[in-house]
Every structure is written in structure tokens, then in C-alpha cells.
């Protein structure tokens, strides 16, 4: 499931789908740290964000957390299932409970600080 996954130090992941398309989600480590997730706010389709720009909010019982773009891009799809059932994020963050899909023509430089999933896990000490 984590094959080809690239992660940020702020706990987002991207998964390349080919043709400049990517899936963005939140890592399993992040959702475990957050605990019960009770609210998800996702951006409008067609909105465009820069790398590291906040594009979504995920709220646990305790707090609201901003989610940041791993690379720049335009939103092509949002996961309506997790808006309706935020707890899905606790169950399957790397699979069905992705956050958004984007199209991106990000240059290589935007990928430089992203970590392979295994390196990310080591980095966060999980």
C-alpha cells in the first residue's frame, strides 16, 4: 500500500497515478497521533495550491490540524466519503480514506524534501 508513496515531514503523503496525477492523503502515523477524527474540511474542486500551502483541515476530538500540499497542484477530486464519515480516516488512511486528487506539473525541485515511506517512518520514530 505504501509502494511509491512519498511523505512530507508534516505527515502528508502523495502517490503518483501517472500523467501528472497524484493522490494526497494523511499518513497512518499522523492519524494515530490525532486519535478519533471527527471533522474533515476539503477544498473546492479546481482550486489551485502552492507547495506547502494549507489546503484542508482535519479535526480530532482534541484539535484542528491544517493539512499542507506536498507539491503544488490543482484539485481534481475530493473524497466525499471522509467528509460524510471522518472516522474512515482512522481506519484506512493509506487506502480508501485519501483526501484529494490533484493534477500537478511540479518540477523535480518540489520533490526534493519528500521522503520515501520507510524513511519517513524512521524519521518520525514509528
Amino acid at each position, binding site marked *: 500500500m505504501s509502494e511509491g508513496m512519498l511523505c512530507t515531514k508534516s505527515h502528508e503523503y502523495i502517490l503518483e497515478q501517472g500523467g501528472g496525477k497524484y493522490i494526497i492523503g494523511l499518513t497512518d502515523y499522523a492519524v494515530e497521533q490525532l*486519535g*478519533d477524527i471527527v*471533522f474533515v*474540511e476539503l477544498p473546492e474542486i479546481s482550486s489551485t495550491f502552492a507547495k506547502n500551502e494549507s489546503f484542508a483541515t482535519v*479535526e480530532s*476530538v482534541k484539535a*484542528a490540524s491544517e493539512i499542507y500540499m506536498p507539491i503544488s497542484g490543482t484539485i481534481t477530486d475530493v473524497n466525499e466519503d471522509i467528509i460524510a464519515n471522518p472516522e474512515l480516516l482512522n481506519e484506512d488512511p493509506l487506502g480508501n480514506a485519501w483526501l484529494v486528487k490533484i493534477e500537478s506539473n511540479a518540477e523535480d525541485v518540489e520533490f526534493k524534501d519528500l521522503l520515501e515511506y520507510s524513511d519517513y517512518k524512521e524519521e518520525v520514530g514509528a
Partner: protein
Amino acid sequence: MTKQTFLHGKHVKLGAKMVDFAGWHMPVQYSSIIEEHKTVREAVGLFDVSHMGEVVVEGEDALPYLNKIVPQDITKLVDRKAVYCQMTNKKGGIIDDLIIYKIQDNKYLIIANASRIDEDLNWMVRNKLGFNVNIINESHNYSLLAVQGPKAVELVKKMGVSDLPPFFSIKRAELFNINLWVSRTGYTGEDGVEILVRNEFSETLWDKILEAGQEFGIKPIGLGARDTLRLEAALHLYGNDLDEETTPVEAGLSWSVPKSKVDDYNGKEVITNQLANGVEKRLIGLKMLDRNIARHGYDVYYNNEKIGHITSGGISPVRNDNIALAYIKNLSELVIGSVVQVEIRGKMHDAEIVKRPFVEKKNKVNT
């Protein structure tokens, strides 16, 4: 240096997620905050609240001294009864909210917030001049365990305390050959007890309660659920809903302040005036009308004018909606049922003023 309760090892062993709270390394959750919350509403939960402060006030002037530092009338307090109090400054602002127990003549026990114990002791010592009292901080000697929920009383009875003290009362008892104090109090809105025990016995007691509680579905409960439970019960949290700039009247605690107390107390002039003539700001309960969550610090608007801010907010696992406590300008047109707006990430979201508490309290049963 972060402090640890005597039950710290138990929490770690149970796999709790630990956080720093008021200088203590405490369990925020063992499994899931929502699950723990429901356990307390439906069965029974066990909390380690040993971070709370315990202060004994004794001496021949203990009564007049306490009567000076809180608006409540301590002269009315009889042996082994408790009263919910606020310790106020000269302006009527709240230094801390406390439970004061009368143990016997000239001897009282105060339970104080962990986050405020240093300020409390400073203030208490500053107010001691002319009173023959000893103020003894016993916090480092005692652990406090809370057993809360609809099955709590049955469990405590099964463990051997057949004759439970009535609501807001305390008694000496023996559980598993350990001498301790059992108080019919809590911070959840449920029936239950808080057990004050010397540190050296707390681990044994913790284990025995979890064991005896198994048949009732007991679970250990972290500070996360403690917060959601107290919010549903609309119980104030010091630092969020109470501070030194807020009086008991503004905080919606007038019910706890006697109007005819004879003795002078810190802040009496301000508080008496507010009771008679009203306040400029007041605490309200809010229910969000969409799925957005109001949180501490968010601004509240009415007719496009900023009228206040949220002091506590979050989800209500029992009501399955989002609730909050807020302080607003005391506008007469804002009543139960009025709709105001909460600004969340730059957008306005409707919220309705609702009655507090948000769920029915189940703890005022004197059995």
C-alpha cells in the same frame, strides 16, 4: 521537570498516549476518547486525577479565614459536607475554582486545580495575615482516583462501601484493607465518587478497582474524555472558562454565590453589585448548526459585530453534535434559541444559544 503521578507506570503499561498537562505527564487516552467518553456515560470509568492539588486548612480561625477567601458561606458547611467554591481576588476575578470539604471543626480540605496550585498557595498565604491558621499542601502525599458513571455506585458498593456518602459529601472508608476518603463528587455529570488515598496505596487500589469493575465494563479514562465529559455537563475548566478577569456571576455561577452572606470576602463589592445590577459579559452555551467545531479562542459575532469568544468547544459524543461555551456581551435580545455566528477559519457558521448543561446531569441523587 514534568511530574508523574504514582500511577504513571500503570498508564504506560496500559498503552496510554501520554501528554504534558499542567506540568504533569498524564494519560490523554488509552484507546479512543469517544469510546472512553461513552463508557463513562453508559457504564463506569476510572480516572487518575492525582495531579489535582490537596490543601488542608486548619486552626482556630480556619472558618473565618476560608469565609474571607471565597464568596460561598463556609459557616453553613457541616461536617463531612462539601461545597463548590471559587477563590476570588479583590476585583471578584477567579483565582481558582475549588471544592472545600469540612472535615471537622477547625479542619477543612481543599481540592484545587493542578494548573493553579502554586497561585492558590501564594494567594492563600498572602491572605493569612491576622488569621490563626495553618495552610498545609498535602498534594504530594495523596493520589485521587475518580470512579464515574451509571454503574459507579454499584461498583463501589460491591467493593465494600455499603453506605455511600450523599452527593457532595465525604466519608472515611476502607477498601481492600486500605484506609481512604470517599467523596460523592466528580467532573463528568455522572454519579460516582472520587477517592482520596495516600500515594503508597494508589497502585493497589487502581488494580483492584479495574478488577472489581470488570463485570460492569469498567475502563480507564484519560484526560481527553474527561474534557469532553465535563463540557457536555457544562462544567467550567479553569484557564478556559474561568480566569482572574472573570467573576463567578459572569461565569454563570451565581447559583453558587449566596446573596446574603454577612461576612466580607475578597471581591464582595464587585460580585454583590453584579448580582444586583447585572453584568457586561456572560457565559452561554452554544450548539453548532452545522458540522463545524467551535474551539477555544474563536470569535463570536451577532449582526456582524464581534460580541465575544469561545472558551471551550468540541464534539458531544452523546448528542452527536458540536457544542461550546462562550462569553458574549450581555445583550438582552440574545436568549435561548437565538442564533449567533462563530468565525471558523475565516468563515461564519451559525450557532444556537442553548441551555446548559448540554446533557442531563445524573449525579444529584442522594442514595
